[in-house]
């Protein structure tokens, strides 16, 4: 026994530079603490929102600076064995932080009228964000677990948030419990998988897993993937998604749909972008099957869905499937001639992830702008005639929906184009087939939404009462406008973003 303990590796000491590298995490953590204190002193929704937003903003800026340095050639560094600070993590921390700000602004407007304690939502938000950025910068299973659980725990709370307030309480409660139970099962599976991998390889630093041929390793890897697939709501782990989306309050769902998934996806990409794992035949085949299933099932489920939130849920299933296609192509052998396309798949995956988060955040933002914790514009028909009732908002929503459908002039087109390209250069014909069919089916329901917005409201029917923009919701249009402009800009001139991502992809 003593011998073995002696063999135990001594953790490297943490010095100030390492702490500096973890600045984003620390800043958000600080914001959380400050926020709690301020709540203890006195409740003020605005103040607590400002605090959490400030924390995220600071984190975002810090990460952006790291990204800049890394893009300028600073080297990737490991903070102990737990965290990795590379361009990828920096990029996504920036993205997450800033989109979290968006969500914070939205939720401020959304919960403004809630007759209950409103401040904690912001705290949970920050907490979840912290979890997310931990996840994207994690190099070690421990940090993965910490990040993932921080994220999920906070999300339970966020989903169940309006639990005391009449209308939505029942739904949010139901979806919270469902989410809790299911994601607990998923976490357990994931943990067990990690345990098996650890058993097989002896290391928990997944960035340097040496492939073991033991079946334990494969089983573990698959269980790990199953857990991640649940969080990404991939078929066959997708069933929870629509219910949770429908029941939860919009801001929470927006967070879950964008930041939650992005963080997990980044982890998955990190894991599978390592050739020694990505090229395991068995695993990649299973993943491919999952991707195909997700694309077809997700799109088909959305086909006749009339509830916008469920519709977005189903479409997110399909989109994660598209993403998986790119991920699968990452491990493809580089094009002969050592051309630009060598890292194309990875770039396309990251690009797709980025664009998807922007688009769905924008879509939810538009929904939030017309809704409040009392009345949500959940049905597609609630958006009937929106284009004529409030053109600007409708145009924004139009851009988002068309973007999700992958129509040109929006970033969605470029993203889908890249996925196509990745799959082609990896000659994944089966996946391409699913992609084509899925997108065609997808068009159908996206067009339904578009059509609803374009149809003028006839005199007889009484349209959904749009929530008028008050002082509290002034921020939301700004967020939406920014998102829309970015989506259009990337859709027309993607080069800068490409450059950024090329820098970020390892």
């Amino acid at each position, binding site marked *: 026994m003593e011998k073995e303990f002696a063999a135990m590796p001594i953790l490297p000491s943490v010095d100030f530079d390492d702490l500096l590298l973890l600045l984003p995490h620390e800043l958000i953590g600080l914001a959380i603490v400050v926020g709690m204190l301020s709540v203890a002193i006195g409740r003020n929704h605005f103040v607590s929102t400002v605090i959490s937003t400030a924390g995220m903003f600071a984190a975002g800026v810090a990460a952006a600076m790291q990204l800049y340095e890394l893009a300028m050639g600073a080297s990737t560094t490991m903070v102990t064995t737990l965290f990795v600070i590379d361009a990828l993590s920096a990029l996504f921390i920036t993205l997450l932080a800033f989109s979290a700000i968006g969500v914070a602004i939205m939720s401020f407007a959304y919960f403004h009228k809630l007759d209950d304690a409103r401040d904690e939502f912001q705290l949970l938000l920050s907490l979840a964000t912290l979890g997310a950025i931990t996840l994207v910068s994690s190099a070690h299973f421990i940090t993965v677990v910490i990040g993932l659980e921080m994220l999920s725990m906070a999300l339970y709370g966020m989903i169940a948030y309006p639990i005391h307030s009449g209308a939505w*309480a029942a739904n949010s409660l139901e*979806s919270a419990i469902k989410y809790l139970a299911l994601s607990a099962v998923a976490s357990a599976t994931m943990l067990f998988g990690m345990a098996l991998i650890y058993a097989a390889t002896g290391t928990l630093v997944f960035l340097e897993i040496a492939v073991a041929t033991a079946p334990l390793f494969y089983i573990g890897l698959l269980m790990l993937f199953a857990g991640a697939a649940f969080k990404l709501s991939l078929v066959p782990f997708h069933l929870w998604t629509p219910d949770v989306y429908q029941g939860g309050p919009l801001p929470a769902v927006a967070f879950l749909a964008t930041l939650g998934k992005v963080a997990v996806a980044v982890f998955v990409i990190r894991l599978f972008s390592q050739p020694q794992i990505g090229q395991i035949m068995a695993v990649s085949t299973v993943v491919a099957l999952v991707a195909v299933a997700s694309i077809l099932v997700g799109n088909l489920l959305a086909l006749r869905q009339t509830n916008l939130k469920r519709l977005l849920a189903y479409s997110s299933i399909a989109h994660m499937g598209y993403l998986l296609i790119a991920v699968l192509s990452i491990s493809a052998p580089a094009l002969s001639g050592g051309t630009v396309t060598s890292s194309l798949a990875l770039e396309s995956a990251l690009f797709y992830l980025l664009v998807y988060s922007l688009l769905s955040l924008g879509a939810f933002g538009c929904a939030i702008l017309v809704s409040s914790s009392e009345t949500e514009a959940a049905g597609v028909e609630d958006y009937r005639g929106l284009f004529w009732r409030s053109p600007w908002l409708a145009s924004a929503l139009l851009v988002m929906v068309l973007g999700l459908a992958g129509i040109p002039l929006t970033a969605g087109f470029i993203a889908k184009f890249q996925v196509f390209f990745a799959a082609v250069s990896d000659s994944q014909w089966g996946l391409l087939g699913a992609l084509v069919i899925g997108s065609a089916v997808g068009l159908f329901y996206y067009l339904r939404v578009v059509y609803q917005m374009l149809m003028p409201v006839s005199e007889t029917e009484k349209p959904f009462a749009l929530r008028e923009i008050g002082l509290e919701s002034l921020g939301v249009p700004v967020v939406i406008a920014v998102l829309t402009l970015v989506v259009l800009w990337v859709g027309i001139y993607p080069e800068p973003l490409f450059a950024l991502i090329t820098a970020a992809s390892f």
Partner: protein
Amino acid sequence: MESIPFEHGLMLAATLFCLGLIGVMTRRNIVFVLMSLEIMLNASGLAFIVSGSRWGGADGQVMFLMILTLAAAEVAVGLGLIIQLYKRFKTIDIDVLSALKG
């Protein structure tokens, strides 16, 4: 003294895990569901310890501690929600939670 071969330990963990799974799937009383979840989590914890002992690293134990706290947190939130559930529906049968579908 002869240490237990780690395959056996892993077997035990797996068995526990499956028991937990079965519990989660079969029980309608949400409290039991939570307990089964606990079992699953702890099963994976056990697996970590076993494999830790195989490689003679502390990581396994560390992970186990993590899992304990994690499980505690899960249960805390879970119980909170259960109370709300009971308040609203006067029951802790999870089958009442099927309003959201389609």
